[in-house]
């Protein structure tokens, strides 16, 4: 966290979320802590099943729908000049006022994230009128203004369009318009560009960056794409098997990672420009094995079974998050020996 700002906008401490499944209890998020200072972007990276989406749904308190429960931890939203909101202990009605108003969310599937039988204008108007006392006509004006803001051409006529009349990129813009219509303090973006083509992805990333500056909001950006995270994040949290294994400033994570999993991830992606490097190997470095079974997690370090640096001690106890640099932590007892 930056030392200049007083309190970060979002504080998550010791978050634990689990799901009951037929095979047993899955601890999808297990002791996750991070902060997001006002106006900054935290990128959360991890592979499928790492718990990154469950973390975001926990912050929105939307895990119960999927059969999950938040078992422990603190989720605190500190809006400037207002008392802190303790999200975990909020009653459901107050929570609904936080959702869409203080914290908004956009999702991966732009094609199915909108109600197909409502016009896009009505879906923005719904969000506006839920959280602001305005007339329908005013809300409609606001909807048109939002559509213009997210770069939809001819918003006055498109406001009455239905989702099926728009392309995937356009629908994701509409989703962003809905999410930002109430000027949230925090935007959670869960893989918002994964389903989009590269050139459209570039447009959406630019849009999120531009609007973040204009509105001054913080962003929690979840992705599996290390390239996207390098581009959009100020800080990065790397998740593995339900835990944050490393967290730090984006440059430190990419140039001096201190967790073997982060190193493995960075090395396993083909580097752009490899073709002009005659020394580049046609073989990629890989992380051996597979992520642990979520109902039978290793007792010690969860990455130890796949880790090239693992020693007996790693299996004995779960490692804490060691401070490894300025605002940089890694969950590895051998962190001084880890290098890229």
């Amino acid at each position, binding site marked *: 966290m930056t030392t200049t700002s007083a309190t970060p906008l979002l504080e998550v401490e010791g978050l634990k979320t689990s799901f009951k499944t037929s095979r047993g209890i899955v601890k999808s998020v297990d002791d996750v802590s991070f902060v997001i200072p006002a106006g900054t972007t935290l990128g959360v990276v991890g592979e499928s099943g790492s718990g990154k989406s469950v973390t975001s749904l926990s912050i929105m308190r939307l895990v119960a729908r999927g059969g999950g429960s938040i078992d422990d931890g603190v989720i605190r939203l500190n809006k400037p000049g207002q008392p802190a909101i303790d999200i975990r202990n909020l009653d459901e009605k107050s929570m*609904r006022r936080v959702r*869409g108003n203080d914290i908004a969310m956009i999702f991966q599937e732009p094609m199915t994230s909108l109600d197909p039988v409502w016009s896009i204008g009505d879906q923005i108007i719904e969000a506006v009128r839920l959280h602001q006392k305005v007339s329908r006509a005013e809300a409609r004006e606001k909807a048109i203004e939002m559509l213009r803001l997210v770069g939809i051409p001819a918003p006055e006529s498109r406001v009455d369009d239905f989702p099926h009349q728009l392309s995937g990129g356009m629908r994701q813009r509409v989703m962003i318009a809905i999410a930002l219509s109430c000027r949230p303090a925090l935007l959670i973006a869960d893989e918002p560009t994964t389903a989009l083509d590269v050139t459209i992805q570039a447009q959406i990333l630019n849009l999120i960056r531009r609007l973040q500056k204009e509105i001054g909001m913080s962003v929690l950006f979840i992705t599996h794409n290390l390239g996207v995270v390098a581009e959009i994040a100020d800080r990065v949290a790397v998740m593995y098997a339900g835990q944050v294994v490393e967290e730090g400033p984006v440059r430190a994570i990419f140039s001096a990672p201190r967790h073997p999993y982060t190193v493995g991830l960075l090395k396993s992606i083909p580097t752009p420009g490899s073709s002009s490097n005659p020394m580049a190997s046609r073989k990629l470095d890989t992380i051996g094995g597979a992520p642990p079974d979520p109902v039978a997690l290793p007792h010690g370090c969860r990455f130890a079974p796949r880790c090239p640096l693992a020693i007996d001690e790693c299996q004995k106890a779960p490692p804490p998050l060691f401070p490894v640099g300025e605002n940089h932590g890694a969950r590895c007892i051998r962190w001084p020996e880890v290098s890229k």
Partner: protein
Amino acid sequence: MINFLLARIGSAIITIFGASILAFVILRAVPTNPARLIAGPFANDEVIAQVTSQLGLDKPLFVQYFDYIVSFFAGDWGFSYSAGQPVLSQIVQRLPASAELALYAFLFAFIGAVFVTVLVSFLASKWLDRLLRLLSFISVGVPPFWLALLFLMVFFEQLGWFPGPVGRGPAPGSVHTGLFTIDYLIAGNFSGFATALHHLALPALALALGPFGYLVRLLRANLLDIVNEPFVTVLHAKGVAPVSTHFQHILPNAFLPTLTAGGLILAQLLGGSVLVERIFVWPGIGTLVIDGILRQDYAVVQAFIMLSAIIYIGVNLLVDILYGYVDPRVRRS
């Protein structure tokens, strides 16, 4: 929309054309000579030949078909020799009774299914859901005539709550639509309306239960699909209350695909129900047709095939137009 309607009407004409050929051919393929039936068992060959030529049965088949079509659209649907009157006037007399029964059965099934299914899905109770599934399973399996007999035994014989098998009850003084309940309402006679409804209740319910179970199944499956759509998560993330999510978003989405099934059910019900009408002595189309078949009165059966086709096409056209109004995905394309 105009294009869409033209296309639908075009295909409707083709379907009616097909049905007319079917009606024409099936009855020409029946071994019994209609002329002999009409002339009676003791008629001699001369008389039969005379009747045959009167009916035009000695002309080539395609000429017969052409005559048939021309007179059909001229309002001459043939002559029922067993009733001694034109088929069309018989159908005009009988249709309102079947239509009224069908409409009430349809309303009971549709409204009941939507109400029960949506309530159960909103309450999200596993126990109630299981009960609903069992109910729909049973109601699809029970034959309506059996149910009709059961209703009569329980609600008429044992409890005496409803009238017995006496048909539609007293007719209203003035006829506007031929539907007793509506005509009583137009006349402002509410006790007459109640009596008519009282007579309708048991046969309509007996007919409604099967379609009810079918619609419950369909709607329940749709709701389960829609509830898991990503857009529902988005609505929660927007802060929309569960009641609004359920009734303003999930329900319309789940309801739309059931319109097609609803149309089919209505068309089927409008064609009359032979057994239930028989049991309740209901003066409808079903009774007319079964008598026509038993007496080999082919003009009646032929007219019924055509009528069923027209009803089926009419209702489907109505459903398509309805989709055009309520479903934006159809409206705009």
